């Protein structure tokens, strides 16, 4: 068993160091980069914490839309091809819900404060995918 603090606690300390110490003491250009780095640490923390709980559901939705099984990567590419050719579209049953849930799952990690993400959550009243 590994000792503590846990990885997420250490990452939180790194983000705080970047924001509270580096950004305050350095030149504007480096301060900007330090803020970006702190945001990156937060992103990694969210991905470690949340993992990929939505991927099982995403695979199920893809299998239902395409009618057969496969890997997440292969089925995503197949769906992309079907949308590109016009074989299916937003009117296809389940398509809109699938694309929305998949995008929301990414944004939960990438940018949970993004205005488009928050607006989508409010509008579509989507629970965790």
């Amino acid at each position, binding site marked *: 068993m590994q000792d503590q603090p846990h990885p997420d606690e250490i990452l939180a300390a790194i983000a705080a160091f970047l924001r509270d110490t580096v950004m305050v003491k350095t030149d504007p250009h480096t301060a900007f980069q330090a803020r970006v780095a702190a945001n990156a640490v937060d*992103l990694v923390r969210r991905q470690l914490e949340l993992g990929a709980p939505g991927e099982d559901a995403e695979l199920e939705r893809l299998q239902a839309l395409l009618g057969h099984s496969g890997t997440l990567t292969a089925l995503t590419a197949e769906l992309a*091809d079907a949308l590109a050719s*016009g074989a299916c579209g937003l009117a296809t049953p389940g398509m809109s819900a699938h694309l929305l849930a998949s995008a929301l799952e990414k*944004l939960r990690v990438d*940018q949970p404060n*993004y205005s*488009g*993400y928050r607006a989508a959550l409010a509008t579509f009243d989507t629970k965790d995918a």
Partner: protein
Amino acid sequence: MNSATEGEDAVRAALAALAPRIGSAARNISGLKRLSGGATQEIWRFDLDTTEGCRPLILRRARGGSRSSVTGVGLDVEAQLIAAARATGVSAPEVLHVLAPEDGLGSGFIMEFVAGETLGARIVKEPTLAGARETLAYSCGQILARIHAMDASRFPTLVRQTPNDLIGQWHAAYRRDIIRRPVFDLAFRDLSANCPPAPKNARLVHGDFRNGNLMIGPDGVRAVLDWELAHIGDPMEDLGWLCVNSWRFGRIEKPVGGFGEYADLYSGYEAAGGSPVNRATAKWWETFGTLRWGVMCTGSLAAFRGADPSVERAMIARRTSETEIDLLRLMAN
């Protein structure tokens, strides 16, 4: 740090030698400071010391005389565009000197320093800019109408792009990424099916007219910056790009740059002589702009794993998902 310092000394010496040709009463320069820039492009601020006092100036240059970027118009053309825009009444900094090879500074130009705010996140919420925000969308419309009235024939090197060309170009860029995104395939399909015709009256298009490239003061727009993506095309492209949600800096309810309304942008544009705005075409360009920004973000993955392994580059790659949710919203309406 050493090479950066040497670079600074070299720039200082070259600017000091150039000073009398920037301003006739100038003997030296002072206060040189690098503001930003990447590996090839740099922006410096300095003061020109004249008998009447200090004049704050900006140097934009690409080292070694190289072009500013693969897709850009080049700094020499950018200087001409800024000067021409100023001549038609568009707020833009005065260009004082275009670099020649013998100046020893690479390619680029020297322009006046314009004070103001360029950070989009501050422009949408800074209390001292509240008054400016009231009329900013209308002003942007007026400015775009003036840009689109510029004589494009004076800039023969600018690329000419129809909406259909742009779809093909950006679709190819999307498919260079290793990740497939069904939302992007859907958006390309949707945009192709509703593509506006090649414009009968193609215009000079700024190409990157958005919150973040405008210098704003309490009195409004003080300068339109970053002309490097200028080209000849459909003028509605600029109106759509300004409304992409990524440039609203959190103020999704203010569609024009996070500070204004569509109706104000369009009425400013039409009042200043712009052709009547077709709402559907403007929305097509907003959707296209969102997809274009999304594909730009995807390109950051290869750049991060290649020439630019910076944290900033990694984080831009992870911004791709924001355009997926925006595209779904735009296509649902």
